[in-house]
């Protein structure tokens, strides 16, 4: 990393109370405080958020897209986890 290169941060924004924080993008900043302030200027210029999380990108661990097929395979043959799997008569109400 170049000497003047600030670390990269991932920005998550809650758009209103009651909703999840959602990934908005990333930015560079010297520390967490600056990352939050920069995130406000970059990602909430039009009241898009009521709360901001920042996480230094190097701390985000991700699943590998190369392994996606095998990684999610266990759920692949378990359609019985969905309510529509069960065959019930139309007369049955409120279920």
């Amino acid at each position, binding site marked *: 990393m*170049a000497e*003047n*290169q*600030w670390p*990269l941060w991932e920005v998550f924004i809650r758009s209103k109370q009651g909703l999840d924080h959602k990934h908005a*993008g*990333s*930015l*560079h900043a*010297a*520390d967490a*405080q*600056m990352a939050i302030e920069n995130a406000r*200027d*970059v990602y909430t*210029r*039009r009241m898009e958020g009521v709360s901001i999380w920042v996480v230094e990108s190097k701390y985000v661990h*991700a699943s*590998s*897209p*190369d*392994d996606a*097929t*095998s990684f999610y*395979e266990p759920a692949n043959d378990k359609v019985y986890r969905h309510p529509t799997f069960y065959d019930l008569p139309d007369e049955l109400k409120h279920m």
Partner: protein
Amino acid sequence: MRVNIHHMSVQDLEKIFQDKIDADIRIEPKDWMPDAYRKTLIRQMSQHAHSEIVGMLPEANWITRAPTLRRKATLIAKVQDEAGHGLYLYAATETLGAGREELLEQLHTGKAKYSSIFNYPTLTWADMGAIGWLVDGAAIMNQVPLCRASYGPYARAMVRICKEESFHQRQGFEILLTLSKGSAGQRRMCQDAIDRWWWPSVMMFGPNDDASPHTAQSMQWKIKRFSNDELRQRFVDICAEQVKILGMTIPDPDLKWNEQRQHYDFGAIDWDEFWNVVKGNGPCNKERLAARVRAHEEGAWVREAATAHAEKRELKKDRA
């Protein structure tokens, strides 16, 4: 079934990649992609980011001389948006493995290009209107299809940008509309700005399709959804109608509705001028680049101070 990409041939990987694109499945940063796709994106996205950043300069020129407080607040907000757009795009480009420092270096050394439109001067207040209406209008025309670009981070950045650009175009048209209802001098100023910005805006869509060698590949990769000439025609058709509301004219004697084509015909573009500006000989190329480099250099102490401040705060935290 476990698919191990390390055991696959490049041809197989390329097929899987193209199949995904054909099925409109977005490509994300960690997915395998052909080198040429990555390179094309880095070039296009960084050029786009640079354009947003350099694009602040011609408009910043008028902030201190905006005619009213309302116009001034609007112009500041618009220029600040451009900075934001540059940052969204730099961040998206970095997901492809390009470093921010490296991207800036390419801009500052002239190795990377930015949109030629910003190498024209902003001579009067009416230029703020013409830029909003025509330059941002052309940019929107180019950018809306990019919201569906095959690379996820690019498409997501573009969605955000397009939402914000709409105000830019509307405020520009409002400036011109106000001038068009003003004194004879103000109307002249309005027409003069349209006269100067029209052709450079039409050129923003890039070379004609037959002179645009990368278009076919970009379309196959769904980075591009429409050809330069298709988008240009759409822009001309829309502006030819909008200009009537201003009671002004477009400086093209060949502009004429073609009943058969259901489009406006328009005059030949001066491609010599276009290439001349691209090659660095436009009216403001040197000035723009110098201003950008100066801003970066004069900002060095701020970056250093922020780093020092962060370190000091970290030390304090450890001691507490």
